[in-house]
């Protein structure tokens, strides 16, 4: 490195880098103050004891951020490191933060700012916004290292919160930068409530929370802000500007939980009410059903009775019909038998009649009598039936089976029939 040749600018950069290791807080009384056209402030700090002086610079942006006016004779604490200003080659203390030194001074600044902001209505109760019910998306600004964060986490309820933390320094004037940056980041994010937290501390250690820029950011934040900053007497101005001021992280969680807890209680109450009403309705319904069932049963019984009557009637009718059919069958059978037997009798009678006729005809057949030896005597073509019809000498015609015999009456004898 000894052989290396640097340009002046390179060398100043190298030295300035080395000088960053001398970052410290220094305390002194403000000497001459000179504000440049760009807003950067050039001032000197003088040691109270031996009047040692160091030239200081604070850039315009930072100066505005800390909200205090550098005036000759004011005692301040500045945090920063030495640095060579390239344009002049002078060594100056580059202040990153400035704050009044001594509680009296701080208090005075605090009271002044408080009054001014109060007049503007920044702390007005009418401007406070309620914490929305059932919030879920929560932004938290605090130091991840401290007990505050773990206290918050252990107390926040299990209500489906989506909590996003932006880690920030919370101690001293240096915290202002982190806090402002965190607030700006959360402005762009979709959250429903912002919680800014810090544990308790001395008035001096809480100075960042009295920063005007921060107070204005909190007052104008698009969603309600809860400030949980521990303090004794004088509340940090951020707490006064916040929509809800609480003293501890656990109380901050109460603010987040309360609507959920209320809802849970309400649900439980409604649940009990519903169960009670449901039970009553159920009982009423059961009673109605039982009554209806009784009516239905009675109706059903009457229907069943009517059905049984009809069924019985139907069975009787069917049986009667069946009997009628059987009777008809029997009658048909009887009629058939009668017809059959009647016809047989008729046929038999007819046959007998024919036989009788045949017998009569047979017995009356003259040829039969003649063949048996009988003959018919005729006189003058008249049949001779007794002796009175003839006289001796008459010529008779005797008809026999195969011809006629002419005979003369020789004698007439009367047969005594009384013998």
């Amino acid at each position: 490195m000894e052989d290396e040749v640097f340009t002046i600018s390179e060398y100043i950069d190298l030295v300035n880098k080395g000088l960053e290791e001398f970052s410290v807080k220094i305390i002194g009384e403000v000497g001459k103050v000179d504000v440049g056209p760009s807003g950067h402030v050039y001032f000197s700090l003088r040691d109270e004891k031996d009047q040692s002086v160091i030239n200081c610079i604070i850039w315009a942006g930072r100066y505005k951020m800390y909200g205090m006016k550098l005036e000759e004779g004011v005692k301040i604490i500045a945090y920063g490191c030495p640095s060579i200003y390239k344009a002049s080659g002078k060594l100056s203390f580059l202040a990153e933060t400035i704050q009044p030194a001594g509680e009296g001074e701080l208090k005075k600044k605090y009271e002044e700012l408080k009054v001014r902001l109060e007049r503007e209505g920044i702390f007005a109760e009418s401007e406070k916004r309620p914490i929305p019910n059932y919030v879920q998306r929560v932004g938290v600004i605090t130091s991840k290292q401290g007990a505050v964060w773990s206290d918050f986490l252990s107390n926040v309820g299990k209500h489906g919160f989506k909590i996003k933390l932006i880690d920030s320094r919370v101690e001293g004037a240096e915290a202002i930068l982190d806090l402002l940056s965190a607030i700006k980041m959360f402005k762009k994010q979709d959250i429903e409530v912002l919680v800014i937290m810090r544990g308790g501390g001395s008035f001096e250690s809480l100075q960042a929370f009295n920063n005007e820029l921060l107070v204005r950011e909190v007052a104008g934040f698009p969603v309600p802000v809860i400030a949980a900053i521990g303090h004794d007497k004088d509340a940090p101005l951020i707490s006064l500007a916040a929509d809800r001021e609480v003293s501890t992280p656990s109380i901050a969680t109460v603010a987040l939980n309360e609507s959920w807890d209320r809802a849970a209680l309400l649900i439980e109450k409604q649940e009990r009410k519903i169960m009670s009403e449901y039970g009553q309705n159920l009982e009423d319904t059961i009673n109605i059903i039982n009554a209806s069932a009784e009516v239905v049963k009675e109706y059903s019984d009457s229907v069943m009775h009517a059905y049984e009557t009809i069924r019985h009637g139907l069975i009787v009718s069917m049986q009667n019909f069946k009997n009628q059919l059987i009777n008809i069958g029997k009658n048909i059978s009887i009629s058939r038998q009668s017809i059959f037997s009647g016809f047989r009798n008729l046929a038999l009678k007819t046959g007998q009649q024919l036989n009788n006729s045949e017998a009569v005809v047979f017995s009356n057949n003259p040829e039969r009598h003649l063949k048996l030896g009988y003959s018919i005597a005729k006189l003058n073509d008249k049949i001779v039936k007794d002796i009175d019809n003839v006289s001796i000498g008459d010529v008779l015609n005797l008809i026999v089976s195969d011809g006629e015999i002419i005979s003369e009456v020789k004698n007439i004898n009367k047969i005594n029939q009384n013998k």
Partner: protein
Amino acid sequence: MPDDTKNLNTNLKRLSEITKWFDNQEEVDVEEGLKKVKEAVGLIKISKSRLKEIENEFEEIKKEIELDNDKQTSP
């Protein structure tokens, strides 16, 4: 023979008349009696044949009726 000899009823009536004629005959009229006998014999022959036919026809009808009856009463 007239056509109505096929009618059994008519024949029976005629035969009845002939038998009555024989029963009422006081004088023997051999010729007429013979005629009646011949007519009666013919009528009896035809009537017996017709009666047989009718009986056969009846038996056929009876068989048919009994067959129908068996069909109706069987399961």
